Structures are given as structure tokens and as C-alpha cells.
């Protein structure tokens, strides 16, 4: 049997990175939220904030650990499976990865230890500072990795030497490449919304069960603030990101819209079926001229169709088309949630309506699904290139054998499924147990069993 190592490496990379992104999507948001909650505790002195913090910091720790172990895999897979890519673009993207480790990973790892186990070992101020530093670390990490990813979508500030190696010509152009600001904003906001709907969903579950009501109100209330104020911002940023993609990656946009023929006044197909063999999209529901209006800000603007590119230059259409609709659909549901929250708030019923609690509970995983769908759109829409327009994915693969990649892929699927299942189980257990009354300063989880340093002398 002949196994294609390139296809298998692509599947393996897609699987491992999809699995990985779930965790940063939550830790970026959770760490910032935890910083706010701890700040509120320090300012108001209300124990309920501290109890909310102590519950969620445990969930954060589980999520972070899974993010770390799946992240280490990513940093090596670039070489094990994509050595052609590593060799070609090392001089351009390498420094970005190095800076991610130096400015973010060490910061997160060191201060996470204090955040989790340092309650009785550092002052309250230092503990709060640690939470803030971890939050900053997660965003810094997002900065570098999204810069590198964006460079692969919209390369800039490079030259190609005669040995087919990419060489840097301007770091500012490389780091702040054309799609980077949009992608960074879009992803960081997505992480915040993912967290808000996750936290809000859990809070709603407590409300439904009539448990931990003061804590649940904080979770739901703060989540709805995000839904109301941040979802519209995200939709706006998403639109700007789309216009940017239209400028730099028109083939991706054509796949997103399911548009085969170049046309003026292109409609937006809301529901349909893109057919690769017939080269057209069977449209079920469409709004005339909307695509042109959104992308060119002119209802009669011209939008290029997929037939502009030869077949081997086109990205896979169906999955890009559908993933985009899933992402936008969830965005609209989030917007609707915000509107419901406003309505209920002004009727003073935000925490009382069962139907709304059930709705929010159902929305708990929505952010994760939207994040994954969004990444499917942007990464699959970039195909068949790994560096857009310059280097094909097929040129990037390592000289490894298909059957070994298959074995490693199977191993990753089995191990990740097991680990993910265990992680979900322990997070569910923590949620079920709920916030615990905070008894004394040397709370056992706070010290995590580490004796305060003075014990060394008094015990001995």
C-alpha cells in the first residue's frame, strides 16, 4: 500500500493544531477574566469574587496543562513533518517563534506556578500581579504566533535568494504583515467571547440548578456584558478581516462565497451547495448584491469567481464554504444572546428566566466551534499554498515515510482522545463541585501541599 506522507502529515497537523487551539482559546480569555475577578476581590473585598476565582483557576490549570503538552508537540512537528518549510522560511519566521518563547512562554509558566500554588507564599498584590502577568503572557503569545501565521497568508518584507530560501528584508513588514492586525484582533476577541460563553453557560447551569447563586450571577452577568458589547465589535472586525482577505487572497473569498463566475453585483449565498464537478453552487437562499456590497462597499462591485484560477490553484470549496457559515451563524447567535440579555436586563429578569438559562447552557461550547470553523476557513482557504502564492504545501513536507506518519497520526488521535476525555471529566467534576467557601488563608489547594518555608525550621 502506498501511503501519501504529505496528505497524512496535513491530516496530522490539522488534527493536532485543532486540538491545541481549543485550549489557548479558553486560557487567553480565562486568564484575563481571572485578573478582572481577582482585581474586583482586592477592590471590594467580597469573598464571593475570591471563591469564583478559586473555582475557575482550577479549571484554568487543567486547560493550561493540556494547552502546554499539545503545544510542545506543535513546536516539534514543524520539523518532523514539514522540514522543507522549516528550511525555507527559518530565517524569516524563526525569530518570531523564538520571541514567542522568550516573551510569553517562560512568563506564563513561571507565574502560573505562583498563581496556582502561591496564595500563602506571596502578598495579595504579588498574587494579583502574577495573574495579570499570565494574562499578558497569553496575549503576547497570541501576538507572535498570529504574526507568523499571518505572514504565511500575506507574506511581506522578504526576498527569495537563488537557493530558494526566504531571507528577511524588513522585520516591521514581516511582523506587521498586511493581514496580521485583523487576524490578531479577530482571534483575541474570539478567545474572549469563547470564554464568556463558556463561563456564562456554566453560570446558567448553576442558576438552573439553583446552586451557588451569588457566584452564578457574577459569571452570567459578566458573560452577558461581553456578549452585549464585544460581539458587535467582533462582527465588525470580522468584516474588516474579510475585506482584507478579499484584497490579498481573492481565491479564498471566492471559496467562502461559493462564487464560481466573476461577476458584478455578486449575491451573498446564505445556504447552498457548492459543487466542484459542475463548477457551480446550487443556491437555496441568497441576498442579491450583498457580497459585492460587503467586500467592495459598492452593490455593483466586481468579485472574482473561482474559475479565474486554474483547478490546481483553487482551495477546497465545500469545507471552506460551510465552515464560514458555521462561524458566522454562531456569531449571529451570540449577537442574539446579547440582545436577549439587554431585553431581560431592562425587565430585571436577567437571572430569572429558565428559557434564557437553558439557551445560555446550550451556547456553552459555541465559541469553540466558531473558533475551529474560522481556522478551517482561513487555513484550508489558503491551500494549495503553505506560503500564499509562493510555496506549495507539497513542497514543504519532510522526507518521512507514509506509514510512519500514519502510525504517529493514529497515536495522536488515540492519546488526545483519551487525554481530552479525562480533561473534560475533571473539568465537569470541578464544575459540579462548584465554588467552595474559602475557609482560611492557608487553604490546602492554595499551598498545594507545599509547607510554608518557615516550617522547615520549626518542624525540624
Amino acid at each position: 500500500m502506498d501511503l501519501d506522507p504529505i496528505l497524512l502529515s496535513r491530516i496530522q497537523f490539522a488534527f493536532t493544531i485543532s486540538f491545541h487551539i481549543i485550549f489557548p482559546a479558553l486560557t487567553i480569555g480565562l486568564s484575563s477574566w481571572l485578573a478582572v475577578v481577582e482585581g474586583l476581590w482586592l477592590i471590594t473585598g467580597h469573598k464571593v469574587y475570591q471563591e469564583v476565582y478559586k473555582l475557575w483557576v482550577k479549571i484554568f490549570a487543567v486547560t493550561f496543562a493540556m494547552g502546554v503538552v499539545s503545544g510542545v508537540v506543535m513546536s516539534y512537528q514543524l520539523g518532523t513533518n514539514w522540514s522543507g518549510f522549516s528550511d525555507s522560511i527559518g530565517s524569516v519566521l524563526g525569530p518570531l517563534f523564538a520571541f514567542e518563547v522568550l516573551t510569553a512562554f517562560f512568563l506564563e509558566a513561571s507565574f502560573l506556578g505562583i498563581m496556582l500554588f502561591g496564595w500563602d507564599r506571596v502578598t495579595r498584590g504579588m498574587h494579583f500581579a502574577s495573574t495579570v502577568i499570565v494574562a499578558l503572557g497569553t496575549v503576547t503569545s497570541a501576538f507572535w504566533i498570529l504574526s507568523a501565521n499571518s505572514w504565511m497568508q500575506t507574506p511581506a518584507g522578504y526576498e527569495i535568494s537563488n537557493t530558494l530560501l526566504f531571507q528577511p528584508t524588513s522585520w516591521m513588514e514581516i511582523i506587521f504583515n498586511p493581514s496580521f492586525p485583523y487576524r490578531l484582533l479577530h482571534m483575541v476577541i474570539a478567545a474572549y467571547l469563547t470564554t464568556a460563553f463558556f463561563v456564562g453557560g456554566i453560570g446558567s447551569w448553576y442558576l438552573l440548578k439553583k446552586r451557588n447563586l451569588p457566584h452564578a450571577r457574577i459569571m452570567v452577568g459578566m458573560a452577558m456584558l461581553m456578549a452585549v458589547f464585544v460581539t458587535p465589535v467582533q462582527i465588525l472586525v470580522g468584516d474588516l478581516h474579510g475585506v482584507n482577505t478579499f484584497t490579498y487572497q481573492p481565491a479564498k473569498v471566492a471559496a467562502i462565497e461559493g462564487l464560481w463566475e466573476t461577476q458584478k453585483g455578486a449575491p451573498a449565498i446564505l445556504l447552498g451547495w457548492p459543487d466542484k464537478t459542475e463548477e457551480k453552487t446550487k443556491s437555496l437562499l441568497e441576498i442579491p448584491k450583498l457580497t459585492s456590497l460587503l467586500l467592495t462597499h459598492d452593490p455593483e462591485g466586481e468579485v472574482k469567481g473561482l474559475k479565474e484560477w486554474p483547478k490546481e490553484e483553487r482551495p477546497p470549496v465545500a469545507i471552506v464554504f460551510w465552515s464560514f457559515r458555521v462561524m458566522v451563524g454562531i456569531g449571529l447567535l451570540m449577537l442574539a444572546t446579547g440582545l436577549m440579555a439587554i431585553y431581560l436586563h431592562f425587565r430585571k429578569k436577567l437571572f430569572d428566566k429558565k428559557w434564557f438559562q437553558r439557551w445560555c447552557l446550550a451556547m456553552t461550547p459555541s465559541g469553540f466551534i466558531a473558533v475551529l470553523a474560522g481556522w478551517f476557513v482561513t487555513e484550508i482557504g489558503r491551500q494549495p499554498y503553505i506560503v500564499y502564492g509562493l510555496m506549495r504545501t507539497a513542497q514543504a513536507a519532510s522526507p518521512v515515510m507514509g506509514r510512519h506518519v500514519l502510525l504517529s497520526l493514529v497515536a495522536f488521535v488515540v492519546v488526545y482522545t483519551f487525554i481530552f476525555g479525562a480533561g473534560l471529566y475533571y473539568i465537569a467534576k470541578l464544575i459540579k463541585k462548584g465554588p467552595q467557601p474559602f475557609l482560611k488563608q492557608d487553604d490546602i489547594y492554595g499551598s498545594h501541599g507545599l509547607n510554608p518555608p518557615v516550617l522547615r525550621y520549626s518542624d525540624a
Partner: protein
Amino acid sequence: MLDFSPLLDLPLISGGVIAAAIFLYVLLDGFDLGVGILFPFAPSEDCRNKMMNSIAPFWDGNETWLVLGGGGLFATFPLAYAILLPAFYIPIILMLLGLIFRGVAFEFRFKSKGKMHTLWDYSFHFGSLAAAFFQGVLLGAFVEGVAVKGRAFGGGSFDWLNAFSLMTGIALIFGYALLGSTWTILKTDAKTQEWARKSALYSLLYVALFMGLVCLWVPFLNDKLFVRWFTFPNLAYLCPIPLLTVVTFISLYKSLAKKQEAQPFILAILLFSLGYLGLMVSLWPWIVPYQISLWQAAANPKSLSLILIGVFFLLPITLGYTAYSYYVFRGKSGHHYE
């Protein structure tokens, strides 16, 4: 664009930075992997909890040095990264899977009881064991060298697997066990410390055995290594390394016998430093042994210049707060957990 290449030997400095990062990884993750290796042999559950607690705040930071080693190699010597990682595809994947099992055990173990608790204990142990073994295998295979074709790996999928690399795999397990047991001596007391001292003695014995074996084997792996170590005047310059190693072994043994607390860990670190120094002497100036030198594999000087600016300003800060974190969690470890 910034370019220090007329002033500085950038590949040389970058090579030093990568070597230092990998060395710090070996020391730091070495002791917490070592704790995992010794884990099931501890005399009681309380001991295991103490051992786990003594490394829980640090393991994540320690493992970050591995990311710096990998990411840093990619950034500074992309050609070496592109050749070595496919060459070692299987052991790297197995090492990563081991690290996954042990990493998540830190969180899951404290949250489970009964059979599940035992399951995560074993996940921690076998994960640590596998990671240590395959790191040792990687080291052995690296010293033996890899086949290169053009700008890519040109050998077979199992070139890394042979008697020498299996031996170095087992050797590193004992090496990490020595670091882990001396760390445990430092961070625990009473019964746990007593047991750790005994473990350290056993580990030390095996480390001596394997270090001797490596010293006898390496010079005969190829002519280059033989010439490096056994010709004059190299022999005269290099003989302090093995001599100091012997002295360190004896001091470490004495220190354990005297029941000292901190010194064994420091001496174990010194032992690793000497071994690492010997390794660097053997491999100089190769980054892909015997095929590609530091200068041939180096990234664009502009890239190296940018990275070195980052390293110059950020690494001292990183080391500073890492030290702060070790200071915050100083003292003996307890056995409580939630």
C-alpha cells in the same frame, strides 16, 4: 536592518545560546523527569505526594526550555532543524507522547481517587520514563551522526536505533534518576529523604557505570572522535574533564554518606555539566554531526542579530523570574493536596 555579522561571530554565539538552552533543559526537566522515574518506588503515598508537590510549581517552566531548544534551533539553525527532526521522527514523537502523559498527570492526579489516581501515577511514571529514554536515544543517535542528502535527511527511518543509542537511552534514565533523587533529598525530610538518599546512591552507581561505558565507546564510534580525544596535544588539554568527573563522583558519594542536603544536588549538576562539556568537545564544530557545521546551518545574519538582541535583553529577565519562582517555593515540600 540590524546586522552584527561584521562585528560578531553570530553562528558561534547562537550555537552557544542553543547549547545553553538545551543544557538548562536537561538539568531542570531532568530533575522533575527523575522524580517521575523514581515515583512508583517511593515507600508511601505521602512520599509520592511530597515528591509531586516539590515539582508541581516548576515542571511547566522547566519544559519551556525544551520549547526554546526546539524553537531556538529552528530559528538559528533552520537547516539543522530540518535535517535532524525528520531523521529522528519516531523517537521524537514517542518522547512527545511521553511528555503528554506525564504533564497532564500533574493536574489529573490531584483531582482523582482510587483506581484513577493510580492510573495517573503510572501515567506520570511511564511518561517520564519514556521521555527520558527517548531523549537519551536521541542523544546517542545524534552523537553517531545522520545521513544527509542535499539539504535534507537522506537516511532510513530506523537509522537512530542501535546498541549505542539504546545504551545512552538507559544511561539517561539513570542520570535523570540521580538528579531527581538528589532534588528529593533537598526538598523533603524524614522518611522520604532517607529513601531518596538510598535511591541517589543506587543511581550514582549506575551513572558511574554508564559514564564509563560511554567514555570507552564514544572514541571508537568514528575516527574523528578518536583523534579528538586520543592524540597529543588534545589529550593533555582534555584530560581535566575526565579527572574532574572522577573527583565529582567521589565527592558526591561522600556527600551522600555525610547526609548533606543541598550538596548532592549541586554535585549532580556538576556531574552533568562535565558530561555535557565532554559532549560539546566531541561534537565541535558540528550541528549535524560530521556533516554540517554551525556556520553552514546558520540562519541569515539579520535573523541571528534580531534573535541575539532578544536573548541579550530577555534571557536575563527570564532567568531572574525563574529564580524568583524557585525562591517563592523554597523549603521542604508537604504531602497535602486537595
